[in-house]
């Protein structure tokens, strides 16, 4: 690995972390629950990227395993969301709690 590579990897990692910070704005603002969840999914991808960069920068191949696990599992929360809560357009009383796919169907 060339000399300049390590600082470059660090800068790249910090930059990806910066995009995660930007993604957090979408989580905070919404407006719908679907937007928030989707942003969280995207941040999961960002975290995988950061881990891959760090694995090279610090020469720690074990971090590839962490990235692998994150990549595999980031979708679980999304799947629970889609099955249990559901994507709905923002409501009039938005921000007052989640909505269910069908209210009170039991």
């Amino acid at each position, binding site marked *: 690995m060339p000399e300049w590579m390590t600082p470059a990897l660090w800068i790249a990692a910090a930059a990806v972390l910066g995009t995660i910070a930007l993604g957090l704005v979408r989580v905070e603002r919404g407006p719908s629950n679907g937007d*928030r969840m989707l942003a969280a999914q995207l*941040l999961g991808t960002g975290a995988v990227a950061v881990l891959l960069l760090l694995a090279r920068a610090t020469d*720690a191949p074990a*971090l590839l395993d962490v990235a692998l696990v994150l990549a595999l599992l980031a*979708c*679980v929360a999304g*799947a*629970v969301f889609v099955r249990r809560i559901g994507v709905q357009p923002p409501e009039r009383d938005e921000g007052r709690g989640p909505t269910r796919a069908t209210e*009170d169907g*039991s």
Partner: protein
Amino acid sequence: MAAEVQVFDAVLVVLLLWLGWRALASADLFKAVVQFIVFGLLLSLAWVRLGAPDVALAEAAIGAGLAGALLLDTLARLGRSGAADEARPLGLTPARTGIALAALGLAALLVASALALPERWPGLAEPALQQLRASGVSNPVTATLLNYRAWDTLLEVGVLMLAVLGVWILEAEPALPRPAPDPMLGLLLRVLLPLTVIVAGYLLWVGAHAPGGAFQGAALLAAGGVLWHLARPLSLGPSPVVRAVVVLGFAVFLAVGVATAVLGGGLLTFPPEHAGAIILVIEAAAMLSIALIMVALFVGRERAPSDAGIPDSAADASAVPGAPNPGAAP
């Protein structure tokens, strides 16, 4: 591993603190839960930076995957009214001022004691690394969990078992209305499930000499189980088969403890030449048990749904949630 502080660390710490606070203070609980999930993601980056990849693996699997799934599921079951909270859930009121002052006082005292600690310390790193040869594995964290402090880990598997016993003791819940079968989910399951099984096995195996091990593998398997449950609802009540798998890890661990105590060495004293194999056996059993326990914690106990529409899948009648006699195995 580089131990200098980078710009990266400063950004990460700021994000962690902001997310930690928003996960607690967002008025909308759904938003709070999503922020908590992202908090878990970033926390695993922090563990990586602190040189704890084993912890990062567990956090990635549990914090980002399973805990988020549990929280979202609970929000869905609470419904709109149950998930509503005050407009300023943590706003300062006279009663809360005292709590805030106590929390700040504790923080100040903790900072003062942290600053008084020496910059470098030996910890138990040296004895832990020196004894590694006799422990049967070459990953010091696995050696600590399954050899030096195996008694802690044995009891901890018991804690997991108790959590699922506690959930079984509770009354069955009304079943959620079942959304239509989702082709995407089926596809996801078909791709991901084999992968989670393979990677879980890999983590279990690699745990002997690199980050990984039973907890991490189990959390991964459990995430696969949660996906399965979402696609084809499982019933994990206290049926004989489920109980046997739940108890397996604890029983094997305890049996090894008894065997080592009776046959010589002493409680959980593994002969160095067999330690590696013994640890692998314990971990394999524990991984199966922990994975099933975690899925059972997510599945909970549901009453039979009012609509009899059972999805097309392989989930036959025996897998109807909360069937009268919970003797049905998945």
